[in-house]
């Protein structure tokens, strides 16, 4: 038996050992865009298990429609990396042009990739990865969201302050609407699109039928991305200049709480317990926020961490555990309705409690007075500002 054969035989075993985490410990994948690597974290121990090399510049990651594979876009390396989310094992690599942000259509037929640097939006056949269409855009196509029927994909154009709607049946732009300065994150939410404007304090809502644009809610300066909680009760929005996280009522779009989160919170992923795992872009760390207690912990990762994905490792829980929960009808890949739980599958057992009903009592004490922020936003209602009391740093 040759040494190389032995190495090949034992490599998977060694890989498993290297990634071995205690039973029921979730794994977290963090894309370090600044040093071309993917950190794999043990969610329970708050420690980094391994750092996997990427080629150049990894930014965003999504699950394949069947929930079996994590797809990482390496924009500088011009490739997509397909990983087994339960082990981190590499499954495949596909060469594509500059994948910055990416998302699958809810019906699973298309993968759409935005290239921020090359001003183009590519439409791929999700099954074969054949390039079906390339649409040149005026300036900086940034984030992507689909309509639940998979007919349209909406892309924010940071440079021109617009959102373009691309009809996937014709693979052509259907319309473009100005939404405000420097739009970034975008999601589908209850029949409309919610868009963060980095050049202002606002998230705006865009009705795709009437093309009407109005303010949805206001946060701090540099509004950036918004995500729905798995239980569907809240939206969580970030702002970059006033580094923080805002909890918004999903029904009324009222801002309920603010968490001060240093270091430029960016992408967010939920664990099954309702904690928010977010990349702190400028600090080279991941923040773990428990909205029930206001506790913020930090874990050191690589430089400029951007995309993040929490992989639950619990009996009866799949990578796409959120797809069977109410919040699955909102987001960048909104489902027409939450999926049916598969046999033996259990939903996340401890969803985030209703907003305000379990508002944490934290020093220096939650303010119930209108804050400078809420006044600036023109809101009459007070905003409950919560400053995380405990910031723990793990290595």
């Amino acid at each position, binding site marked *: 038996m040759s040494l190389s054969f032995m190495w090949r035989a034992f490599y998977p075993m060694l890989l498993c050992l290297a990634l071995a985490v205690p039973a029921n410990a979730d794994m977290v994948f963090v894309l370090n865009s600044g040093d071309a690597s993917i950190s794999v974290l043990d969610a329970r121990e708050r420690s980094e298990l391994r750092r996997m*090399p990427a080629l150049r510049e990894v930014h965003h990651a999504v699950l394949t429609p069947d929930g079996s594979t994590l797809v990482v876009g390496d924009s500088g390396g011009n490739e997509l990396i397909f990983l087994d989310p339960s082990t981190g094992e590499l499954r495949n690599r596909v060469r594509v042009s*500059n994948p910055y942000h990416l998302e699958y259509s809810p019906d699973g037929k298309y993968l759409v990739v935005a290239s921020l640097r090359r001003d183009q939006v590519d439409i791929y056949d999700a099954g074969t990865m054949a390039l079906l269409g390339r649409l040149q855009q005026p300036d900086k196509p940034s984030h992507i969201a689909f309509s639940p029927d998979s007919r349209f994909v909406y892309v924010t154009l940071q440079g021109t302050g617009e959102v373009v709607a691309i009809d996937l049946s014709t693979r052509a732009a259907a319309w473009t609407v100005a939404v405000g300065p420097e739009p970034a994150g975008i999601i589908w939410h209850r029949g409309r699109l919610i868009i963060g404007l980095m050049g202002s304090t606002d998230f705006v809502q865009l009705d795709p039928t009437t093309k009407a644009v109005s303010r949805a809610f206001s946060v701090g300066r540099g509004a950036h991305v918004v995500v729905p909680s798995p239980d569907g009760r809240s939206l969580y929005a970030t702002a*970059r200049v006033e580094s923080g996280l805002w909890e918004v009522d999903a029904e009324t779009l009222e801002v309920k709480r603010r968490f001060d989160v240093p270091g430029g919170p960016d992408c967010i992923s939920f664990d099954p317990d309702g904690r928010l795992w977010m990349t702190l872009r400028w600090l080279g760390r991941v923040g773990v926020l428990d909205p029930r207690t206001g506790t913020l912990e930090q874990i050191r990762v690589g430089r400029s961490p951007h995309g993040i994905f929490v992989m639950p490792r619990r009996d009866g829980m799949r990578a796409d555990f959120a797809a069977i929960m109410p919040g699955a009808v909102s987001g960048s890949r909104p489902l027409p309705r939450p999926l049916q739980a598969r046999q033996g599958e259990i939903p996340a057992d401890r969803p985030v409690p209703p907003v305000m009903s379990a508002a944490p009592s934290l020093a220096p004490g939650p303010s119930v007075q209108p804050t400078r922020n809420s006044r600036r936003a023109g809101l009459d209602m007070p905003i409950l500002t919560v400053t995380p009391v405990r910031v723990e740093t793990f290595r």
Partner: protein
Amino acid sequence: MEFFEDHYLRLVTFLFEGAVQPALYHLGLMEWAEDGYDWLDFFLFGLLQVGVVYVICRPLEAWRPVERGQSARAVRTDVVYTLLARLGLLPLLGFVLFAATQVRLEALVADSGWIPPTLEGVFPSLRETPLLAFAVYVVVLDFFEYWRHRFQHEWRWWWSLHAIHHAQVHMTFWTDDRNHVLDEVLAAAWLAGLAVLLGVPPGQFPIILMVLRLAESVSHANARIHFGWLGERLLVSPRFHRLHHGVLSIGASGKNYAVLLPIWDWVFGTADFRRDAFPHTGAPGTPEAYSRGGWLRQQIEGVRQLARVLRGRGEKPQAPRVPAE
């Protein structure tokens, strides 16, 4: 190392969140926030680089100088070049002027169906060893830098710009960045062309980049230092590179073109490994502004000389008969 990295990141974040990002917001430039962070990082890292280079090279120059009594004014000009290049002001200007063009070119390349390759794509085993991949890139790019440097000397129009680098008669470690802006633009275009053909090297090794940068500065140092028989063949030394800057080595008559690895001179027959030669530096026959002018005067004169050569009036660079020391 992690301690320093951690504190460095905190400093970058503090300045970015406290000053740069709010300024971008007020100017309506938040779409450039990530680039702004990168530039701040570049600026602070450049500052750190200059500090490290100074702390190491200055004592070497004081310990064993080749030439004493150098003109402070001439050296100051080189300091200006270094600060402009290393603190990101010239690259920032280039970025502002050429970013849109670069995006269009990249889109054009992508539209053609050509996806720039990487060395790791050609040699998959490099994927799992980023440090080795980085080393391979350093060797490959150094090879192309050797040839760019030769062309700078052999093509008269290019020499009319590059001569500014060689005109310094008081060469010190500050001289490394003494390049005409158009020469820098050509270097950037050269590297961009290579990036399309070979891919760009990984950039996640700032400490190694600093060491490489330090090696290039040391090679310009006014220090009577050589690395011994073997060392001279492995890494460009102050002696090896001073011989390249010697007055007998200007224009097409040059020796020792290598930037980092002398092996290229060895392979292509341009090496001079005499360990006792520490000649005077300079480029006789070039305009007086090249050696005595300030930064702006040299830039203007460089454009003028380039225009003369392109009109066919430039003089062919000749090596005067000045004996080496």
